[in-house]
């Protein structure tokens, strides 16, 4: 296999030219940001070239008055957040930062990496996934085309929404060069109502009740570890404390124990986010109906897994031994999707990280790949169905 030689373009034109050159030479390209999620997706083969995006690291625009920004793909999310925070704003994406080449103090993931993998944290509850916050995008295709989709304003329906298509596409359709994002007011303070249960049914019933409560939580998470679980309702804003007390009362009414209000709550949420990554075991991201939480917890318990997740969205992250992934998949309720994110290199055999994806939707995805990257230059083999 060829040895990957890294490229680190500093302009959109250079990046597009590098893709075009690779395509012309019949070489494959692996797109790399900060490298915090290198192990995600299928690891079928070594690419001919690595293209590092960290040379494209500018915050091109921050239009504070319009609550929008344009960020180049290689800018670190943490750096961008500091810039926005200075104006009392945030990009409402809080994925776990992970480690950069094993260095936890590194700059953390790039914005392009977060968008391309669709990674997100507890704030997804209120603000949505990366695809919901990206209002426009500039992309480079493998033939060297530089194209834009969407716009810079938060409301826009002109043209096709390629920004959504490229969000979560793992760089298999082309390279994200920059993203236009919607920002939100930064919530300076928040408090969290917290309740516990050792019966998954009881925890789930409380989660359903809080999901239906008109309290506008910033985040609504569950955690489960060693036969005991918690429900966390985060309330921001000036009257956050008052709403947290109402949330706590609801938790008590639904039979949760140890109900309390945590202020400050930063550590609590840091722990939830940390539960989405693992550097020794495997992380499986499960999507199921929110009301199926007891079944997901039961499947996890049978595999000695710990769980954190978004109660109202039915998204859970289970940490378990890599060898137990197959068993977990077998025990999950019908219709649940289970994607392996982290796993130690070579630790999982016989399991596709994406699970079984087939049928007309996969066929459509293959057709998209063939239209956008006909030569198969960009991140080949990494994605669903070996795309």
């Amino acid at each position, binding site marked *: 296999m060829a040895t990957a030689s890294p490229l680190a373009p500093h302009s959109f034109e250079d990046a597009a030219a590098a893709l075009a050159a690779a395509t012309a030479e019949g070489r494959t390209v692996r797109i790399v940001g900060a490298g915090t999620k290198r192990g995600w997706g299928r690891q079928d083969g070594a690419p001919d070239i690595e293209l590092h995006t960290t040379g494209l690291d500018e915050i091109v625009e921050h239009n504070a008055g319009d609550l929008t920004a344009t960020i180049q793909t290689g800018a670190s999310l943490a750096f961008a957040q500091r810039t926005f925070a200075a104006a009392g704003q945030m990009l409402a994406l809080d994925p776990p930062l992970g480690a950069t080449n094993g260095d936890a103090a590194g700059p953390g993931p790039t914005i392009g990496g977060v968008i391309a993998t669709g990674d997100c944290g507890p704030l997804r509850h209120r603000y949505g996934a990366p695809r919901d916050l990206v209002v426009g995008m500039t992309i480079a295709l493998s033939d060297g*085309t530089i194209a834009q989709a969407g*716009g810079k304003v938060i409301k826009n329906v*002109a043209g*096709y929404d390629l920004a959504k298509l490229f969000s979560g596409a793992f760089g298999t359709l082309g390279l994200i060069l920059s993203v236009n994002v919607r920002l939100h007011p930064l919530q300076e303070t928040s408090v969290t109502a917290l309740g516990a249960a050792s019966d998954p049914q009881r925890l789930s019933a409380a989660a359903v009740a809080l999901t239906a409560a008109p309290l506008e939580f910033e985040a609504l998470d569950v955690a489960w570890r060693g036969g005991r679980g918690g429900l966390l309702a985060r309330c921001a804003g000036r009257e956050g404390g008052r709403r947290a007390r109402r949330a706590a009362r609801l938790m008590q009414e639904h039979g949760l124990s140890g109900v309390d209000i945590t202020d400050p709550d930063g550590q609590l949420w840091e722990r939830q986010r940390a539960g989405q990554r693992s550097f020794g075991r495997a992380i499986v991201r499960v999507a199921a109906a929110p009301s199926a939480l007891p079944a997901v917890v039961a499947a996890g318990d049978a595999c000695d897994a710990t769980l954190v997740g978004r109660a109202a969205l039915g998204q859970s992250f289970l940490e378990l031994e890599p060898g137990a992934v197959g068993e977990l998949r077998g025990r999950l309720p019908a219709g649940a999707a289970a994607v392996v994110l982290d796993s130690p290199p070579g630790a999982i055999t016989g399991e596709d990280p994406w699970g079984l994806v087939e049928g007309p939707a996969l066929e459509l995805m293959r057709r998209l790949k063939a239209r956008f990257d006909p030569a198969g230059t960009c991140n080949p083999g990494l994605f669903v169905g070996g795309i």
Partner: protein
Amino acid sequence: MPSGSPALISRLQQICGREFVLTHQHELATYRSDGLLHYRQVPVAAVLPATAEQVRQAVAACYEAEVPWVARGSGTGLSGGALPVAEGVLIVLSRLRRILAVELEDSRVVVEPGVTNLAVSRAVAPTHFYPPDPSSQIVCSIGGNIAENSGGAHCFKYGFTTNYVVGLEVVLSDGSMVTLDRDSPGYDLLGAFVGSEGTLGVATKISLRVIPAPESIRTMLAFFADTGAAGDAVTAIVDAGIVPGAIEMMDSLSIQAAEQSTGAGYRLDAGAALIVELDGPREECLIGLERLTALCADAGALDVRIAQTDAERDLIWRTRKAAFASMGRIAPAYYVQDGVIPRTRLAEVLRRIDALADDYGLRVANVFHAGDGNLHPLVCYDSATEGEAARAEELAGMIIKACVDAGGSITGEHGVGVDKKAYMPSMFGEPDLDAFQRLRCAFDPHGLANPGKVMPTPRLCGEVPGPYREHPLERAGVAERF
């Protein structure tokens, strides 16, 4: 009529029943336009299937006959997106109007495409609601909302249709059926489909996320000397970190027209009216209302009124929503535009619109979603005056150009359809349009679904180009391609 049509019509009659395939001119007249009446086209036939399977078979029959088709919901669209094509079939979804499931424990409702927008909220009331609320919500269909990625007055806080669609069953132009699920691994096909204006396929089953109904709604109506001062108030509100459910602005001309319709007591001496609605938890609304009132006063409000009852709130909104319809009181006809600008450029762009209106000797009323910078300039004209309609159309185009020049968009919620496709090159270059076409060709390589919409010039899909590339697994001898 294209050759082969009699066979196709006979096949459609087999699929849907003779009475649900319309071919006579007088029957088809109803369907020749959508909400944009100045575009008219009678299709070869209109079919009204009753089930998703009938839709699939109808699309498959069109594919076999190589006949293009257009899907239509309630026909309220404002961009000619559901305008029939002359040689094609119109597939009308209005008989698919069942609510299939209400699953509040999963914050979800599953509906057929012909269900109206308001019926979705009603199905989940009083505990929940479906946030996207286009002004036509009483009649517009969810299928149409999906096609257009509809917004509404409340999307500044809550987002658009695309943020609420969690699953779709879609019929592709080759008659195959595919299920798109928000949380399935793979490309965001759902995100690509929503807002694609019926050019990628037709949705036959739709799962929507609904959210808890706000426990408190407080509506404020403030009057200002001019739109500049009202714009300053909007900036102050947003800068303060307040996220109202809706922020709507009307200028003097639209106040005059709407007040004549509803008699709501809007101030006729005001240059601008601002409607700000706070919704959410009781505590937040109460505090927010105090801050809002203070911010509006600081921005020079002439008068600030708070709705004290539901009836007062309804009247405020009825007047805002009557603005389009009331234009008939001050002009025989108008063009409505849907441009978007960065909100901070509001005052400047409104001045530019005023100057343009003066140049063209026409009146332009402005009603808009001020929070997200979505303008709806109404260019008034009288087609009885020779050349005025053409002048108005040109002015409408100049206004759109001013929006794009300010860093905005040609359309915020109405869609491109046929009406705005000529403006697409002002926002997108050839490489951008080429990238759009790649998406379209992946879904509909034969160009049968709603042809002639969105893209400024007709394009064909070539064969998928590119050399054969050995897959890493093949190279490694693990897999073979057959």
